[in-house]
């Protein structure tokens, strides 16, 4: 199987994110490979182990390649970075257009991505890429089985109050959710090797993309300012002894918060 995996390096959930100016954030330099992308890499590697073939990790992040190295250290065969100054400020749809330009003339059986990137939490790139390539997609999968002779996948997708079991012909794009697998921890030796692995770099000209199709000019829904989360009022600690504290809580929930 030929599999592409979309990956991205994102701020660690523990990293502080501060508002620098209305339209600029200051993010602590503490990054990790997007949690859901590692699940996608793992799923790809398991399919390769079963059916043979090749796993390519792909990022459109001009700044960080660590997610690609993570992919290589886990066992991916090739790493590709689409890097161009014009990509700066692109929204997820522009990233999807760029990835589509790279993938449209290639042959593959499957594209895997994380359910969402833990930075803007949009969950757009993978699905929009499937649209651009006219591929079927299944979002947020927690089960995956491939029937190679029928060129078909059986997937399980998480929905409210249950699970959907679907069949989907290949090639297709799936976004991966926690529960699909537990990503392997790469061996130190492989991490070292991955540090030196060659990363193939491509710019927008080589993909035949007009700069106006990416970056801020292409944005249809734009951020006008960043805001701090709404402040919560200070906590009211109920300090009475048990069981009075329970009665007070119930009274406050009814009379003060009016939620029950």
């Amino acid at each position, binding site marked *: 199987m030929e599999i592409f995996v979309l990956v991205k390096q994102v701020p660690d*959930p523990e990293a*502080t*994110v501060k508002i620098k100016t209305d339209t600029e*954030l200051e993010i602590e330099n503490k990054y990790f490979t997007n949690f*859901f992308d590692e699940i996608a890499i793992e799923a790809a590697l398991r399919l390769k182990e079963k059916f043979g073939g090749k796993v390519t990790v792909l990022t459109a992040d001009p700044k960080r390649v660590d997610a690609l190295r993570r992919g290589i250290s886990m066992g991916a065969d090739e790493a590709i970075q689409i890097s161009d100054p014009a990509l700066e400020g692109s929204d*997820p*749809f522009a990233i999807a257009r760029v990835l589509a330009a790279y993938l449209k003339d290639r042959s593959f059986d499957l594209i895997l991505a994380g359910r969402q990137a*833990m*930075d*803007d*939490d949009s*969950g*757009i790139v993978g*699905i*929009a890429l499937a*649209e651009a390539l006219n591929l*079927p*997609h*299944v*979002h*947020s999968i*927690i089960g995956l089985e491939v029937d190679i002779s029928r060129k078909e996948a*059986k997937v399980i*997708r*998480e*929905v*409210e*109050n*249950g*699970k*959907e*079991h679907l*069949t989907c012909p290949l090639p*297709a794009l799936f976004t991966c959710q*926690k529960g699909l697998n537990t990503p392997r921890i790469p061996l130190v030796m492989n991490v070292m090797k991955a540090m030196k692995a060659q990363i193939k770099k491509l710019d927008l000209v080589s993909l035949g993309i007009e700069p106006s199709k990416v970056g801020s000019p292409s*944005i*249809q*829904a*734009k*951020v*006008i*300012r*960043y*805001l*701090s*989360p709404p402040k*919560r009022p200070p*906590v*009211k*600690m*109920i300090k009475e002894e*048990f069981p009075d504290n*329970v009665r007070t*809580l*119930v009274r*406050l*929930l009814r009379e003060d*918060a009016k*939620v*029950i």
Partner: protein
Amino acid sequence: MANEIWVLAEHQDGKVKGITFELLSGGVEFSKKTGQKVVALLLGSGLEEATKGLLPFADKIYLLDHPLLSPYTSDAYESALLPLLKEHQPSIFLGGATSIGKDLFPRLAMRLETGYAPDCTELSVDEEGRLTVKRPLFGGKVFAEMVFSEARPQMATVRNHTFLIHENLGKSAEVLSIPIQLDPSSMKKKVIQVEKSSGERVDITEADIVVAAGRGIKGPEHFKIIEELANVLNASVGTTRAVVDEGWRDLKDQIGKSGKNISARLYMAFGISGAIHHVLGIGTCKTIVAVDTDPNALIFNYADYGIVGDLFQIVPALTEELKKVLASEG
């Protein structure tokens, strides 16, 4: 045209989902400012009951009835909606930040080359119908305020409980059946089975009230007391990553960064210390109650009401007290 506000209706077993009533209520609020019509888009097969449910909530219902539209797949919904969206060019198109909305809207927006903001928690319009939204980034550490280009529709998916449901909107919708043709061969995905979770509780993302326990519950068998509390409050039961990773509860109930974001009216956390992974998932809950034995537990920084105490003592007493109080109300 761009003179309509569209809402993608979601329904299950003939019943329209709460999020849809919320979005229509929000849409009607907007329409008072913009003078636009509010339209519910109802797709599926055998839609009589759902149609009836929607009548008082919209000016118009566009009915797209076709066997291939049930159960939902993005393939079929997209094929049915794209021509309609191109023809009508509504001003605004809202959907729930749900397994349907978040699945479908990126494809539509990509195809229509229009703006889409996912997972919004606050929305407003001006007199010209220009939409402004707020949405959490980095799991809620920061919010982004966003506006849209001239492209229409302005598309957004919206979290549960962002708008209140107004029961008396004074509407009586006109129902318009939209003829649709779907080519079965272009419907690539097929839903072969829908496996419903056991139990009666709604999903934690949809629930008005969520009660949750963390590792302080000490073992899966003790969730019984949380379930009993949930029964009294008609609540859903959530939990933390640590508990899911222990295998004590199902992944579908996990709140937080690698689980689900909830926007409940009331959230009660028992024996949850408040790791960043968890609290990022509860930021948009209206009222938060925390009970933990550790007075320094981080969860108290996010709570409205806190009790330092043992959940094994507090939870059963709380259940009894609520039973008493709620019963006296009849």
